[in-house]
């Protein structure tokens, strides 16, 4: 694996010639030869017009979409072609995901929402998981909402809880699809600062799809997609 050797210390995620087709309504190639590396501690943004393939790319990188061409490496390990159960385990410990529509589990408290991926991981005892979840909520400034049902929170608060959930297992990579798309400028700023800190202080890699040009401009590096191809 020559590519991993060039920067073995710092390449966390590597996309090699990713291509993807959709077959309905007609055969359409939405990703074309996408190739890039993401480094440890890097705050990377993905931009491009609507329909340029940003979300599609992110789903491939997230291991949830396995129907693509090319190869994906995370931490130097080839992810492409692994069994769905292995992929689920990789998502559990190495990838945190933040969606545009915060998608919390409505029946559970905010705290429990944050805890669930850690309970699945099974690395810490229940009490410790609970403590860690409180810590994450605190980082995001929503610890006082911990015991409320997720559905009772405002949009900005919910998004912060879902970021706390993405952080709970200390993943190497945090992926976000328009994480600030539904937030006002104040909340957008908060989320941006959090990502910046995570990258700088925790050496976590952020890959965020965004529409927001200011948001992108302030990140470490921006990759621009057009018509399924990296142009910048």
């Amino acid at each position: 694996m020559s590519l991993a050797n060039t920067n073995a210390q710092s390449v966390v995620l590597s996309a090699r010639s990713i291509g993807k087709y959709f077959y309905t309504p007609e055969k359409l190639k939405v990703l074309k030869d996408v190739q890039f590396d993401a480094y440890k501690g890097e705050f990377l943004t993905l931009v491009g017009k609507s329909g340029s393939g940003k979300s599609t790319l992110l789903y491939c990188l997230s291991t949830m979409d396995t129907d693509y061409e090319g190869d994906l490496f995370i931490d130097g390990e080839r992810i492409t072609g692994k069994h769905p159960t292995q992929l689920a385990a990789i998502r559990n410990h190495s990838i945190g995901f933040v969606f545009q529509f915060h998608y919390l589990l409505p029946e559970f408290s905010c705290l429990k929402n944050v805890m669930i991926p850690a309970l699945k991981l099974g690395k810490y005892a229940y009490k410790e998981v609970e403590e860690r979840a409180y810590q994450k909520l605190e980082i995001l400034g929503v610890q006082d909402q911990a015991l409320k049902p997720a559905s009772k929170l405002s949009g900005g608060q919910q998004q912060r809880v879902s970021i706390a959930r993405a952080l709970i297992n200390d993943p190497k990579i945090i992926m976000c699809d328009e994480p600030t798309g539904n937030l006002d400028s104040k909340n957008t700023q908060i989320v941006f600062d959090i990502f910046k800190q995570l990258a700088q202080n925790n050496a976590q890699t952020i890959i965020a799809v965004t529409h927001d040009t200011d948001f992108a401009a302030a990140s470490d590096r921006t990759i621009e997609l057009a018509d399924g191809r990296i142009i910048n």
Partner: protein
Amino acid sequence: MARNVNLDIALTHLLTRKRQTIVAALGVTIGIGMYIFMNSLMAGFSRYARNEIFKMNPHMKIFREDEISVPLDGHSTEGNTMRVLINPAITTTSKSLLDPQRLLENVRQISFITNAMPQVNVDVFYNKGNSQCKGIANGINIAEADAMFNIGSTILSGSLEALQGNLGGIIIGKGIAEKLNLNLGDNLTISSSRGVLKIMKIVGVFSSGNKNTDESKSYVNIAAAQQLAKQGTTYITDIYANTINSNQALEFAQNVQTITPYKVEAWQTTNSDLLSGDVIRDIMNGTVSMTILLIAAFGIYNIMNMTITQKLNDIAILKATGFNGSDIVGIFLRESIFMGILGTVFGLAIGAICISVLSKVYVGGPIGTFPIYFDAKVFFRGAFFGIGLTALAGYLPARKAANIDPVSIFRK
């Protein structure tokens, strides 16, 4: 609180939808309750019917079958065949078994035979004045017969002991006593088909619960019956035998058949008409109770399908955060199994209550109280089917949930 996260999620789902959970469980409860009730009633009724059969039938009978004359084959001598034609007719001249004592001893020595007794049956008329009625005098050793058929419990007046060794005594059916207006202690004239007349004293009256029997049957000593049949002391018409397991009587009868040329007939053969009714009843009962259980399971299936449709987002989230296919199956399977267990436990309880109440309800006639009884096997089967079918009913939607593609949900 350190418990399995899949269980945790499943329980939260159930608790936040209490109504749905209860409705689904209730379906199972009703299904299992009905299943227990129907099967216990059937089991009780079968047992009652069996007992009725064994009041009069031993597990097997050994007797001399009527032989029919067959055409004699002609002696064929070089193409010249002579045929002798005869009308087929019963050729048995005596109903007696040859050397019955030895046969009886041999039968008694077989390991699966619990008891065996000889009998002499004679067709007779019971006469009083000008009234007459037809019947069968059953010559037995009353103690042996009581051991086999529990005759003592059918005695209305008089006693079995009074017949023991009393050659002039007779115990008659209630129907005979009523028809001929006879009472305990009265004398009765008996005439046999062999033309023997005998005056006997009524020492007991019985009621078997079967009208035909009560109107025709009487018990006398073997020696008295031999006199009525105008035969000697070796004359025995039937040997009755019971075995360790009435259900195996057919095999046992085949086995006994190897040591005697006489007909050995198991009770199932004698009562095949009743038993064919049993088979139909079992099929009907099986079909109905399975249908009820399937409907209950279908309720679970529907509710789980609905739940999963409502929870597509949650399933996608769980998968995105690292839950794999078998975790998802585990979560939803736990939910349906929980509803199944909840429903089954209450169903079993309701079944048990039904049984204990109904078994005390008097339905009258010779049946007495409701022939329903508590059979552990029925409960085990109910629990097995209840939980098994709901697990299966939950598994199908759960597997569907496990196959959901989270990306397609997030794109919406």
